[in-house]
């Protein structure tokens, strides 16, 4: 039989989930209102590093309306601490306590929780819990923490290193011997975070009569959360149901098992009633998940013509106080070391990789995970090299790229790049930007005392990495596959149950596009569901740009199975050969004979209600299929992109204005270009925020100086320009449909593109940046420091 002409993949279809969001008919966790609910507020450590010497709850307990209090000693005895260990031999592990006891290791760490009639009363009571601390010296400065001799975050280790690994590939010594030019510099990215607009939120509802714990959570990973909660609380997984309803953004931040959620569940189990916790902004900024604090000292062996001969990198990542579940504390460090060679042919590579414990909020995945920092380093370094050697930043990239016809390409790191269009993408970006013309305008502006700059940021992005990659990374849970069920009911309508949660990505539309096209039914006949572990098949969830490839692939496979059943049954009922039938738009007919037809609805109805008409060996259950997909070869499929930022810097104020921002991206075959555009815009905006504004600042005693949105600046519509997006489509030769992941990519390149643009603008002043963010104060400081040095 022929796969029909029903075409949805590749269409710009507006999202089917939107009406409920547009009319306010949504259900986020905060909208879950169960009878008898009490509301939780946490008591948190005001110290970065201290020992709790006493904890008094008497005054809080006496407050009317207080239903229960859980303190750290009780939580320690009633739960298994969260522990996420790498399988690397060099790993040193640690427990992340549900409530800290007796040591607290970062400002904001939870030590007790109160449940009361409403949040107002819970906060009142939380203030009455008295905790006495004996402060210890805090471990804050990253590079000092990485070296021996200072205070320790975890005493038993003897140092502060979660991980200290070395990798060496190719003839590094030879590369530096042959080098005509060596460039060495340290590049830093700063602590910032994803800040989904909806913070963490959960309602735990334990029913003592059934023994069932139902947890509504704003999570990206409902099934993994179920596993983690069951492990921590000593429950069987079938006694835990996690429901992630509408979720207000995630960006990786909500892909964790949080200690607070375990504590809220424990409190519900103690009280036998629902407990609700809605995090506030200070809690989110101080104690959720931080990201991106890296220092990379790199050395590049170069020819004078700008060819890379070898690269060494000392990668140091501030992982904060604890190892986060299910990622470990190695994710950023490992990803950065993998991707620091960028999209370039590097014949020799050596790295030391350290993940360092400090008395700060734990570091976890945020859109891009290590890649924004890696791209910042290599892309900034190449611009520095180009400036030192008198080369053009576009030319030096074209000189070193993996050529567009060299795929699949095995990189020096061992990664297999499946396909990419680096050269074509950069050329398109350069031409779109009107590069030679811009250089003339820049010269004229400089003559007039204005500082314009252009910056390129390009990358290859590993997406949808599956089994082999995660085994290599040494994580305890290998995020190797995802699973989707496709079922046809007696009305001929299709239900897709997906293990991947959608919190902005648009799965209700894009997964339906895949299923409708593969099945040959109208898009409107497909409903996509997710988020409830009671109905969705077990799977990993939404992160690492994996949904379209792994979830889409699983949906593709399951649809094909159901289509085969459908056509076999129709052939039997129509007394025709399977090969003579075609299935389009919900109708099965004999090719070239439109009078011989059945609707999908008729076939489904008869199959379910008149089983005597089914052919031998087919049962109604065959109208449903559950499939897992682990995209080969398991190392990921690679998306590429070229970003161009054109900026003007006001040298009197240090203010950076983005005049133009261009993205040329290639994520293979697109399922829905409208959704792809949205993802590129959103990722790019978060990258711009990270490059220019967002900064989680700690003082040298570990106090967070940016605990509200008055200090932690999120980009507004005045900070983000009208981002121009252009697409190339180089399909993956490996994945079903040639689809690649692309959710994170936008966030990777703005860091280097903007730093390169601002450095280009200020080149006449001899200023170039090796650290972010490019806030007015920091830009001005760099200009003035340079001015002072040259006076």
């Amino acid at each position, binding site marked *: 039989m022929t796969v029909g002409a029903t075409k949805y993949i590749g269409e710009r279809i507006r999202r089917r989930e939107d009406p409920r969001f547009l009319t306010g008919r949504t259900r986020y966790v905060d909208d879950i209102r169960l009878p008898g609910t009490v509301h939780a507020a946490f008591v948190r450590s005001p110290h970065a590093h201290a020992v709790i010497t006493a904890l008094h709850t008497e005054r809080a307990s006496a407050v009317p309306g207080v239903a229960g209090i859980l303190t750290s000693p009780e939580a320690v005895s009633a739960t298994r601490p969260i522990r996420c260990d790498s399988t690397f031999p060099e790993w040193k592990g640690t427990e992340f306590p549900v409530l800290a006891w007796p040591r607290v290791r970062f400002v904001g760490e939870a030590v007790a929780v109160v449940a009361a009639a409403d949040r107002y009363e819970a906060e009142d009571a939380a203030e009455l819990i008295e905790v006495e601390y004996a402060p210890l010296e805090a471990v804050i400065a990253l590079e000092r923490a990485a070296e021996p001799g200072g205070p320790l975050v975890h005493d038993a280790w003897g140092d502060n290193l979660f991980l200290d690994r070395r990798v060496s590939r190719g003839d590094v010594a030879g590369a530096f011997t042959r080098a005509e030019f060596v460039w060495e510099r340290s590049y830093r990215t700063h602590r910032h975070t994803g800040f989904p607009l909806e913070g963490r939120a959960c309602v735990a509802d334990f029913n003592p009569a059934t023994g069932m714990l139902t947890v509504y959570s704003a999570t990206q990973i409902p099934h993994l959360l179920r596993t983690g909660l069951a492990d921590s609380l000593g429950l069987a997984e079938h006694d835990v149901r996690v429901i992630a309803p509408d979720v207000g953004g995630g960006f990786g931040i909500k892909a964790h098992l949080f200690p607070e959620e375990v504590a809220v569940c424990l409190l519900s189990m103690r009280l036998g009633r629902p407990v609700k916790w809605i995090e506030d902004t200070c809690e989110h900024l101080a104690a959720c998940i931080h990201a991106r604090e890296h220092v990379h000292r790199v050395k590049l062996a170069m020819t004078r013509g700008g060819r890379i001969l070898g690269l060494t990198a000392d990668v140091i990542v501030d992982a904060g106080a604890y190892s986060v579940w299910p990622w470990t504390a190695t994710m950023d460090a490992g990803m950065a070391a993998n991707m620091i060679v960028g999209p370039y042919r590097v014949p020799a590579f050596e790295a030391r990789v350290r993940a360092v414990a400090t008395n700060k909020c734990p570091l976890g995945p945020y859109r891009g995970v290590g890649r924004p920092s890696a791209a910042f380093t290599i892309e900034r370094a190449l611009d520095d090299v180009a400036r030192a050697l008198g080369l053009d930043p576009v030319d030096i990239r074209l000189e070193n790229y993996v050529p567009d016809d060299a795929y699949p390409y095995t990189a020096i790191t061992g990664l297999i790049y499946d396909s990419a269009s680096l050269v074509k993408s950069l050329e398109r970006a350069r031409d779109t930007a009107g590069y030679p013309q811009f250089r003339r305008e820049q010269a004229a502006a400089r003559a007039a005392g204005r500082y314009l700059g252009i910056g390129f940021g390009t990358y290859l992005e590993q997406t949808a990495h599956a089994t082999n990659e995660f085994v290599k990374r040494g994580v305890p849970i290998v995020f190797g596959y995802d699973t989707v069920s496709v079922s046809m009911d007696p009305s001929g309508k299709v239900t897709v149950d997906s293990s991947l949660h959608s919190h902005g990505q*648009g799965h209700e539309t894009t997964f339906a596009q895949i299923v409708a096209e593969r099945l040959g039914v109208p898009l409107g006949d497909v409903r996509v569901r997710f988020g409830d572990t009671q109905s969705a098949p077990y799977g990993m969830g939404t992160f690492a740009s994996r949904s379209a490839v792994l979830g889409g692939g699983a949906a593709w496979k399951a649809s094909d199975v159901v289509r085969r059943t459908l056509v076999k049954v129709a052939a039997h009922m129509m007394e025709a050969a399977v090969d003579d039938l075609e299935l389009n738009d919900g109708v099965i007919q004999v090719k070239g004979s439109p009078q011989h037809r059945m609707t999908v609805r008729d076939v489904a109805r008869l199959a379910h209600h008149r089983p005597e008409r089914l052919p031998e060996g087919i049962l109604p259950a065959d109208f449903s299929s559950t499939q897992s997909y682990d995209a080969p070869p398991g190392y990921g499929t690679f998306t590429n992109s070229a970003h161009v930022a054109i900026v003007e810097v006001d040298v009197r104020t240090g203010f950076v204005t983005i005049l133009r921002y261009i993205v040329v991206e290639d994520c293979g075959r697109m399922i829905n270009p409208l959704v792809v555009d949205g993802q590129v815009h*959103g990722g790019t*905006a978060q990258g711009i925020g990270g490059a220019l504004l967002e900064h989680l600042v700690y003082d040298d005693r570990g106090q967070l100086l940016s605990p509200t949105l008055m200090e932690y600046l999120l980009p507004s519509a005045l900070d983000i320009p009208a981002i121009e997006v252009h697409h190339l489509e180089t399909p993956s030769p490996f994945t079903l449909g040639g689809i690649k992941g692309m959710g994170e990519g936008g966030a990777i390149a703005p860091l280097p593109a903007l730093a390169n643009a601002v450095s280009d603008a200020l080149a006449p002043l001899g200023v170039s940046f090796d650290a972010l963010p490019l806030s007015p104060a920091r830009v001005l400081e760099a200009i003035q420091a340079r001015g002072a040095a040259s006076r």
Partner: protein
Amino acid sequence: MPGPPRCTVTMTVNGRRVEGSVPPRKLLSDFLKEDVGLTGVRVACEHGVCGACTILVDGQTARACLILTVQADEADIRTVESLARDGVLHPVQQAFWDQHALQCGYCTPGMLMTACELLEQNPDPTEDEVRRAIAGNICRCTGYVHIVKAIRAAAAVLRGAAR
């Protein structure tokens, strides 16, 4: 022991008279969600920065997280639930849908209310005017590109309807 004092409030919410008895410190955002039962009032930062909880109070945008319920006594409140009529989306809602101007949807109600106020005051805003108008509404998903486009598209539709 007597409980904390409570205040009686009366207001109009989306055209309907609503009465309530609340502690004096209860925020309007909490009252609208918990007592009135609206799901279109979204609260994010709770300190007046992000704009997610933007509603109309007596015809003007305001942040429901910065207003005490008692301050809204006798006020006329409009939320996103008031925009669609008889199952037909308001032109601003329709434009947001057509232009893919939302992703996770958390900022959307506040963004729509701000956009509606802008278009009432300025039927033909430039791109820059749109950006200035929504600068107090943070969106973390879209990069604002499609939001700006949608608001200008809605302006054109509304101008056409007004003619």
